[in-house]
């Protein structure tokens, strides 16, 4: 499968279409809220209206008497969740996941304090409006910049040093600046939803929005002290997630508790407002970067500090400073990462976790340095190109980032760019170009595939893996099609169900590498099984149906398990990206228009050009949202989100987005897996926000260091 092919820039119609495309365009694809087990009831959550304190009383009488209401569940009457209880004799850990309906404590605004279950959605919603709570209110803190001094290092992480500390200070050219990435909310289009049903006292079925059915199965088995096999998790279609469905959340547990109480299936769909408080977000992060360089643009030192917010009850850590340790060859690097605990819900991983935040700061600072050096930003990066991993000294399994720079620069028309900011005007708009890059570890975990060849020549592949949108099934079918030598139409890929063979949670850009390797190996094993039937001298890709019939067999099956990352001990493995952006800035209003985008991914061999292109385009658009409009705003007087809806929380719409060109270096990685494919999801977004900010500076001379780059900041 490792073909040396030239770089590609697929069109939107190039390559094989998605295997589930027909289901998605006809409305037949079923997402988790769209199943109808007999006796289905509806749950609606009531959220806390204070930010910190405790519930002193909760009046559920009116709700309980409202038409159709079957139950009102609060901390006062909820059945205990066994996994939430302290283990016999062991002390309760000081911090941990939020436990729904556990006690009277309030940790964040919008925290679920009651669940109303009724026979229809409307009746549950009305019932929920009747629940009234009284609180004892404590003083809350939700503002990171004012409370940065309370930061603390996360356990086992936080600081890094190579070479001399703060070496940048001695350099002839230097930049020292602060950058802000605000809270950004995943907001997948599908609202998080679960249908929970107790099939028996010790058997649970859920249709749940999750990026990993096996992970959810384990979590729920642990929480409700059930044998793992007694928990069934179905998640055949997932309407986007971007990280928000990587862990099990309180609303899922609430619905399961509710189903236990009413002894009927309970459907619980979060509201859009709930999506801001219930399923994580990219944490508000303050950063300070200092870079020193010689006159010819060689980096001499990077110092990178970051402080990210977390909740008061749980520590969420990511790696915003990692990018400064790894992206460039720089002899002296020191970084520091702190957490600041606030009275908010716990953040979670969001597309490019850590790196997306860190690269905004690093790649903006590098751009600032390029202007003080009067050096082209691409040239500055090439002069500090890391030929081996700067942190470990290991060789890279593959790295073609220099080719990616060239491809992107050629494609965007980088030669048109003027080094002098605010020097190009066209039709009344200022014109500017910017670029920035990203990297993300190329990971691979173990996975199992069942592959079954039938007498009609059709191949069935089964895996528990979820597909939150990238087209996992499509890529797997393409891998199997090539390995088996049969057309893709003959292959069916079953997924998204915990009863299927093991697969890792879809996250960290590792699905194709992990599950794809298992598909590849399962096909090899299946072919070997056919070879044994045929005997020596047969072709590698026989007429499978014919062989089965000749041997009077209904089918031939293998179950193949493959392991995790190969070669990690010898090689550093990463995917790389670079984004080039041309923007127009209106000098009278500060409005920024994205005019042209070229994104280049060095993510190994491209298995599925059509879906790979869409993934890169989608990541770029997510990055444009992060750059120009996305910010979840808390009114710190109340500790409450004030723009928790799609009218006030702006995401890119069609009118904001031009055609986006996705280019692929398309050179296979010889180490990571037999396909030579590396991940793509994170690098599609990482670096994009800085590329836009850098282009805005080139166009207007205005450097915006706190995202999003709204017109008021451009005009300030």
């Amino acid at each position, binding site marked *: 499968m490792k073909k040396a092919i030239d770089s590609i820039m697929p069109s*939107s*119609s190039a390559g094989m*279409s*998605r295997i*589930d*495309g*027909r*289901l*998605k*365009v*006809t*409305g*037949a*694809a079923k*997402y988790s*809220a*769209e199943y*109808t087990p007999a006796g289905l009831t509806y749950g609606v959550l009531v959220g806390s209206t204070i930010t910190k304190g405790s519930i002193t009383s909760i009046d559920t009488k009116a709700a309980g008497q409202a*038409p159709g209401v079957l139950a009102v569940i609060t901390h006062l009457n909820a059945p205990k969740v066994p996994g939430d209880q302290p283990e016999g004799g062991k002390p309760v850990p000081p911090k941990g996941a939020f436990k729904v309906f556990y006690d009277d404590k309030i940790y964040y605004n919008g925290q679920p304090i009651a669940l109303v279950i009724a026979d*229809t*959605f*409307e009746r549950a*919603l*009305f019932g929920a*409006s*009747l629940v009234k709570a009284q609180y004892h209110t404590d003083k809350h803190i939700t503002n990171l910049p004012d409370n940065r001094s309370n930061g603390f290092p996360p356990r086992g992480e936080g600081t890094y040093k190579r070479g001399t500390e703060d070496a940048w200070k001695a350099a002839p050219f230097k930049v020292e600046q602060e950058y802000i990435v605000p809270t950004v909310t995943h*907001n*997948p*289009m*599908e*609202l998080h939803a679960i249908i929970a049903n107790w099939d028996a006292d010790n058997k649970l079925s859920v249709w749940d929005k999750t990026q990993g059915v096996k992970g959810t199965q384990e979590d729920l088995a642990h929480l409700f002290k059930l044998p793992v096999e007694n928990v069934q998790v179905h998640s055949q*279609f997932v*309407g*986007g997630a*971007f990280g928000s469905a990587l862990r099990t959340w309180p609303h899922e547990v609430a619905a399961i508790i509710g189903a236990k109480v009413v002894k009927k299936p309970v459907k619980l*769909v979060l*509201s*859009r407002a709930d999506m801001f408080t219930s399923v994580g977000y990219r944490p508000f992060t303050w950063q300070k970067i200092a870079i020193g360089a010689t006159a010819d643009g060689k980096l001499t030192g990077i110092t990178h500090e970051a402080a990210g917010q977390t909740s008061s009850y749980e520590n969420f850590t990511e790696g915003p400073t990692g990018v400064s340790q790894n992206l460039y060859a720089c002899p002296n690097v020191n970084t520091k990462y702190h957490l600041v605990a606030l009275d908010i819900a716990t953040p979670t991983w969001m597309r490019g976790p850590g790196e997306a935040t860190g690269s905004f700061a690093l790649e903006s600072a590098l751009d600032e340095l390029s202007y003080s050096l009067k050096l082209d930003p691409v040239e500055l990066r090439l002069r500090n190109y890391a030929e081996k991993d700067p942190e470990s000294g290991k060789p890279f399994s593959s790295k073609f980032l220099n080719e990616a720079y060239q491809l992107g620069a050629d494609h965007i028309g980088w030669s048109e760019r003027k080094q002098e900011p605010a020097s190009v005007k066209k039709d009344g708009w200022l014109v500017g170009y910017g670029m920035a890059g990203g990297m993300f570890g190329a990971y691979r975990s173990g996975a199992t595939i069942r592959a079954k060849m039938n007498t009609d020549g059709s191949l069935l592949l089964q895996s528990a893996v979820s597909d*939150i*949108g*990238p087209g996992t099934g499509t890529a797997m079918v393409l891998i199997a099609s090539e390995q088996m030598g049969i057309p893709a139409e003959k292959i069916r890929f079953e997924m998204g169900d915990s009863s299927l063979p093991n697969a890792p949670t879809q996250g960290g850009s590792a699905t194709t590498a992990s599950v794809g390797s298992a598909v590849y190996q399962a096909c090899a094993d299946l072919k070997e099984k056919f070879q044994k039937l045929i005997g020596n001298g047969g072709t590698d890709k026989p007429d499978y149906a014919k062989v089965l019939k000749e041997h009077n067999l209904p089918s031939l099956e293998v179950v193949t398990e493959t392991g995790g990352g190969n070669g990690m001990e010898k090689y550093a493995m990463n995917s790389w990206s670079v984004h080039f952006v041309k923007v127009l800035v209106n000098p009278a209003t500060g409005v920024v228009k994205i005019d042209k985008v070229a994104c280049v991914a060095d993510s190994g061999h491209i298995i599925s050009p059509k*879906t790979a*292109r869409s*993934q890169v*385009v*989608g*990541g*770029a*658009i*997510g990055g444009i949202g992060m750059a120009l409009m996305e910010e979840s705003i808390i009114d710190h007087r109340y500790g409450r989100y004030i723009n928790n*809806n*799609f*009218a006030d929380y702006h*995401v*890119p*719409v*069609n*009118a904001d*987005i031009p*055609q986006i060109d996705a280019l692929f270096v398309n050179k296979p990685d010889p180490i990571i897996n037999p396909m030579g494919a590396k991940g793509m999801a994170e690098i599609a977004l990482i670096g994009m926000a800085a590329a836009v900010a850098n282009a805005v500076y080139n166009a207007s001379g205005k450097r915006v260091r706190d995202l999003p780059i709204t017109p008021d900041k451009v005009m300030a």
Partner: protein
Amino acid sequence: MESKKTCTGPDEGLDIKDSSRRNFLKQSTLLTAIALTPGTAIKAAADHVDEQFAAVFEKMPLKMEVNGKQQSLSVEPRSTLLDILREQLDLTGTKKGCDHGQCGACTVHVDGHRVNSCLTLGIMVNGKKITTIEGLAKGDQLHPMQEAFIKHDGFQCGYCTPGQIMSAVACIREGHANSEHEIREYMSGNICRCGAYPNIVNAIQEVKDGGMKV
């Protein structure tokens, strides 16, 4: 005037104990029952049968044609067309993304025009023709817009897709698909978080340029 109560929101001003139509209905059915046989009435109240009576009176008839099929329903006036389609008719192709008319995932056609079904009460479409994503194809023959969305990969996760396609068909019918710029403007009521916008524009342009009947 002083006795008139105004309803300011779902959780304020509406006192179901005293003033709601529901309680009036419950009391009046109860009164009728008491006039007949007191014993039955007490039992009825205990079994929440009065509740069931009231529920029937509170509903309103709704007749509409959905995807060519006549539907005769009894719905609460507060039920949205979106929830009726999804929860009562099991037409889950129409999606709920915000429930506030802000994302377009719930777009359907009412008498041929695109409408946010989450902002449309069921009783507002009495006697009207509704087309949902499930009614766009002719049997196995996909609508050209559905074909174009597959060809140009106008989606990733697929959740906004039914709304995008219903909007896209209407966009061409309205005469708002004459340029890439115009398509982007008139498709901006449909949010796609996966970022398939350029692909969606390509799909719509192909259908428009192909001159296919939509």
